[in-house]
C-alpha cells in the first residue's frame, strides 16, 4: 500500500503520517479542554452535563499516552488511543469515540503513513463503528450528524483528486455544518431522547465534540 504514495517524505501533503496524527490528537486534547465548559453547558441543556468533563478526562489520558509511548505505525497509535478512551471516559462517549479509533486503526494496519484513499477507508471504518455501537442513524441528533456529512465530503474530495489535508479540510467544514444542523433536530438516542420535542433548539454536544475532532485534523 505504501507504494501507492508517490513521495512518502514526512510532511508532504500527499500523505498523513504518525507525527501528523499525533499533532492532530494533541490539538484535539487542547481544544477539548478549551471547550470543556461549552460541552458541559450543551450537555446540561439536553443530557446530564458530563460530556465536557468526560472528554477532558479521556483526552488528558490520551496525551499522557502520547507523552510516554513512541508509536511506529498509525494503527498502533489509533488502537492505543481507542483503548485509552474506552478505559477512561465512561458514559456513551467512551465506547463511541473508543470504537471510532479502534476501527479507524484497522485499514491502517502496519502503515507509518497513509495516502488519502486509505485514510478514507479508516475514517469510514471508524464512523461505521460508531453507527454499529450506538445503533443510531443520521438525523437522530448525535455525533453521527457531524461525522456522516464529513465522511461524504471527504470521499467526494478524494474522488476529485484531493490530498489528505485538503480532503480533511472539506470534511471539517461539512462536519461543522452538520453539527449546526443538529440544533433543530429532535433527539432519538441517548439521554436527550427523553426530552422529545423539548430537545429541539439545542446543539448536540456529541456532534460538537465530533466537529471539533474533524477541525483539529487540519488547523
Amino acid at each position: 500500500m505504501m507504494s501507492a504514495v508517490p513521495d512518502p517524505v514526512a510532511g508532504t501533503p500527499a500523505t498523513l503520517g504518525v507525527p501528523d496524527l499525533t499533532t492532530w490528537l494533541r490539538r484535539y486534547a487542547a481544544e477539548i479542554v478549551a471547550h470543556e465548559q461549552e460541552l458541559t453547558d450543551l450537555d446540561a441543556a439536553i443530557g446530564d452535563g458530563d460530556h465536557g468533563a468526560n472528554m477532558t478526562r479521556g483526552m488528558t489520558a490520551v496525551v499522557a499516552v502520547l507523552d510516554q509511548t513512541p508509536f511506529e505505525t498509525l494503527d498502533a497509535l489509533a488502537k492505543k488511543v481507542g483503548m485509552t478512551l474506552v478505559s477512561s471516559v465512561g458514559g456513551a462517549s467512551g465506547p463511541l469515540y473508543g470504537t471510532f479509533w479502534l476501527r479507524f486503526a484497522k485499514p491502517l494496519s502496519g502503515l507509518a503513513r497513509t495516502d488519502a484513499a486509505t485514510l478514507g477507508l479508516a475514517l469510514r471504518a471508524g464512523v461505521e463503528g460508531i453507527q454499529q455501537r450506538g445503533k443510531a442513524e443520521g438525523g437522530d441528533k448525535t455525533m453521527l450528524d457531524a461525522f456522516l456529512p464529513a465522511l461524504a465530503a471527504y470521499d467526494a474530495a478524494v474522488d476529485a483528486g484531493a490530498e489528505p489535508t485538503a480532503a480533511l479540510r472539506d470534511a471539517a467544514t461539512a462536519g461543522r455544518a452538520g453539527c449546526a444542523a443538529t440544533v433543530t433536530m429532535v433527539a432519538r438516542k441517548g439521554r436527550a431522547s427523553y426530552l422529545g420535542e423539548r430537545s429541539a433548539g439545542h446543539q448536540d454536544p456529541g456532534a460538537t465534540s465530533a466537529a471539533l475532532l474533524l477541525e483539529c485534523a487540519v488547523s
Partner: protein
Amino acid sequence: MKKLINRPQDVVAESLRGFALAHSGKVRVDHDLATVYRAERPLLGTVGLVSGGGSGHEPLHAGFVGHGMLSAACCGQVFTSPVPDQVVAATQQVDAGAGVLHLVKNYTGDVMNFEMAAEIVADTADIEVATVVLDDDVAVQDSTWTAGRRGTGATVFAEKLAGAAAEEGRPLAEVAAIARHVNENARSMGMAIAPSTVPTAGKPNFTLGEDEMELGVGIHGEPGRATVPYAPAADIARQLAEPVLADLPFAGGDRALVLLNGMGATPLIELYLMYGEVAAILAGHGIEVVRPLVGNYITSLDMAGCSLTVLRADDELLRLWDAPVETPALRWGR
C-alpha cells in the same frame, strides 16, 4: 451547593473508602477499579452476578453485593456508567466456572460499556457471559423515538431474585431467565418534588416551581411524562400506581412484590405514608401485596420524591425472595 464532601471529583473514591471500612469483612473493594466484591471467594460451580452503573444511586449497586445477591458491583463516576475495564476485571474475578450474568440498566452508556466488556471477555477469556438489560420505567411511553424505557426499581428485584437463584447453584441460562422474567413482570414509575445536584455540576439538574412536581422522572433527573401541579400524597400515589398497573397490565387476584422507593432526600415518614396510599390503591384493584419493601434502595443523590415498582409474583419468585441474603443494604434469614 452544600454537601458533605471534600473535592467534587473525589466523591466516588472517597465514599468507597468509607464503604470498605464500614463493611469490612463482608466486602472487598478494588479501589483502583472502583469495584466492590464479596469478601468470601465465590463457590465453585456457581454463577457470578455482576452489575454496576453510575454512582449516586446508593445503596444500588454496591450495597447489594453479598451472599444471595450480587458477586460484584462496578461503580462509575456519579451518573456516568463504569468503563469496560471494570466490568472485564469483575467478570474474571467472580467467574467460578459456571459463567457470569451481567445485569444492566437500560441507559445508553451502561449498555454500550457492558457490551464492550462482554466482547472483550469473549475475545480474551473462556468465560460464558449472559446479559439481561432492565427497562421497567413506564414513564417512557414512546420507545421507538427514544433510547427506550429506563432501568429503575426492577433492578433491585432482579439482583435479589437472580442472586438467590445463583446461590442455589442454578445454571447461567436459568439465572438469566429469572432476571428476564422479573424485568418482564415488573413496572415502575417515579416522581420528584425537588431535583438532585451532581457534585461536579454544582447546581440542580432541573428546576421545579413551588407548586410543581415531575411525574415519571428518571433516576438521573431525566424528564418524565409531564411537569404537573404538586398534589397531596393520595393523588401522587394514584398518579404513580395507575400507569404502572395499566401497563403490564396487572389484574385482580395478582400477587405482587412492591417496592416503594425513596429518591434520596425524602424521609421515611413520608415513604411509609406513601406506601399506605399505594397499598390502598393496590387493594382496591384486588392485588395482594405479598412482600412490601419500603425505603431508599435506588436513589438519585439528593432528589426528593419516590418511585413505585410492582412485580407480579409467583411461588418461585416468592421462594427466591425469602431466601437468605446478607448485603450491606438488604439482609434477612442469615
